């Protein structure tokens, strides 16, 4: 286990992100303690993927601070990247390489020691050992998804970010992923995942959050409570359509700059 120089695996404060005039994340705060799994719900376009991309360092926030494992996302980007594993919508794998070759490639880039053993372990964890030497393009979508998960856990990151990881997985694979996430957090590492499957999100996440209006709420309770939180969503208006977000933003920025 890595030496941890922070109380939280993830600590985000005042996070903002807009795409041109469209605010996606607005003054968002998030803290994820070590050993916690957080399931993130939200309607399409609510900003779940944007939030994960910011935490993964592939998108820059317009404002706010983020610390991952105590490292500042803007100033210590390389340290953050070493400590984060990402499963995105796409596999990040090369179709003409085998899962083993893909993992070997990423293991070298991440500077993983004892590569062969770690690759074998990652493949074993996702149940892909038998197809490890077949080209990725010959694998089913579910198997490609498993290989993507193996790639994300290969360097044993402190924080695992998964964007709708259940997509394309059959029942057995979902079970496998649930077990893996449980094991991951029991080792003191943290997980943030997004999903549209409320039951699955509740099963996988020790805590649940709903992203709406660019901010997070943390409804406690069952699937019905979360569904209600989701149903109440109103899409954010464009700043051109409504001056209110702009005025609120200016006020907030003024307070922040003081």
């Amino acid at each position: 286990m890595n030496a941890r120089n922070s109380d939280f695996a993830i600590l985000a404060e005042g996070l903002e992100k807009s795409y041109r005039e469209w605010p996606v994340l607005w003054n968002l705060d998030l803290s994820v303690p070590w050993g916690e799994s957080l399931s993130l719900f939200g309607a399409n376009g609510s900003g779940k993927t944007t939030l994960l991309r910011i935490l993964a360092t592939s998108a820059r926030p317009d404002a706010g601070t983020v610390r991952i494992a105590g490292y500042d996302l803007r100033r210590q980007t390389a340290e953050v990247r070493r400590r984060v594993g990402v499963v995105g919508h796409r596999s990040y794998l090369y179709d003409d390489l085998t899962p083993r070759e893909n993992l070997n490639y990423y293991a070298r880039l991440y500077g993983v020691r004892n590569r062969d053993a770690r690759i074998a372990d990652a493949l074993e964890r996702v149940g892909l050992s038998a197809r490890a030497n077949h080209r990725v393009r010959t694998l089913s979508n579910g198997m490609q998804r498993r290989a993507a998960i193996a790639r994300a856990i290969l360097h044993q990151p402190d924080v695992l970010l998964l964007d709708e990881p259940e997509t394309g997985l059959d029942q057995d694979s979902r079970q496998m992923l649930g077990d893996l996430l449980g094991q991951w957090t029991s080792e003191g590492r943290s997980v943030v995942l997004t999903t549209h499957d409320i039951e699955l999100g509740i099963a996988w996440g020790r805590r649940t959050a709903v992203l709406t209006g660019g901010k997070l709420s943390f409804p406690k309770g069952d699937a019905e409570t979360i569904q209600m939180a989701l149903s109440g969503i109103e899409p954010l208006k464009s700043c051109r359509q409504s001056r209110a977000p702009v005025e609120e933003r200016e006020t907030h920025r003024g307070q922040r700059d003081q």
Partner: protein
Amino acid sequence: MTALLGHMATMVWKDILLELRSRELVISVIVFGLLVVIVFSFAIDPAPGQAKTLAPGILWVAFAFAATLAMNRAFVREQEAGALEGLLVSPVSRDAIFLAKAATSFLFMLLIEAVLLPAYAVMLGFSALSWTLGLTIVLATLGFALIGTLFSALAAQTRSREIMLPVLFFPIVLPVILGAVESTTRAIGGETFVGLGRWLPLIAVFDVVFLVICPWVFSFVVED
């Protein structure tokens, strides 16, 4: 520095392995290059002695078009399954990503040119056995690879990348092409290094400028 070189070697190895598996880039560009010289031979039909005058221009026009074909693929592979994003969230510096891609393009282009050059020499009637010609090709190809890789990354993010790359590439790489044509004219005329005049240093200067500017610009191109 060691980490940068290690990351570069890993990425270059991966690109070579992918090319060996797919065989979609080098062979198709070589076929294109051979077709160009055949078309030129039929279209121009030069008088004896005239071919040698036209050869440098034909050679570098063909090499430049071959480079745009090869460069077009440089980042397409990375984007096919989102692998570029996987690379960007890894602890690999943007400089290493750019330099590895440029090094791969440089190696592939040298391989393509090594196959095409003897064919052009035979068809256009000049001697390819000249070390000054070899040096010209290496330096000009390095310029092509650096600027082509940058614009390939830029073009890969647009819908019309096949059109976008040549539109961006040719105006910027024009000084390298001019220098290469002039240097090649003298090299196949039997001139020594001194005889090449300012053209070879001119290409080298452009290479150094591209080597400094392109990795820096690349980091902005791939950031969200």
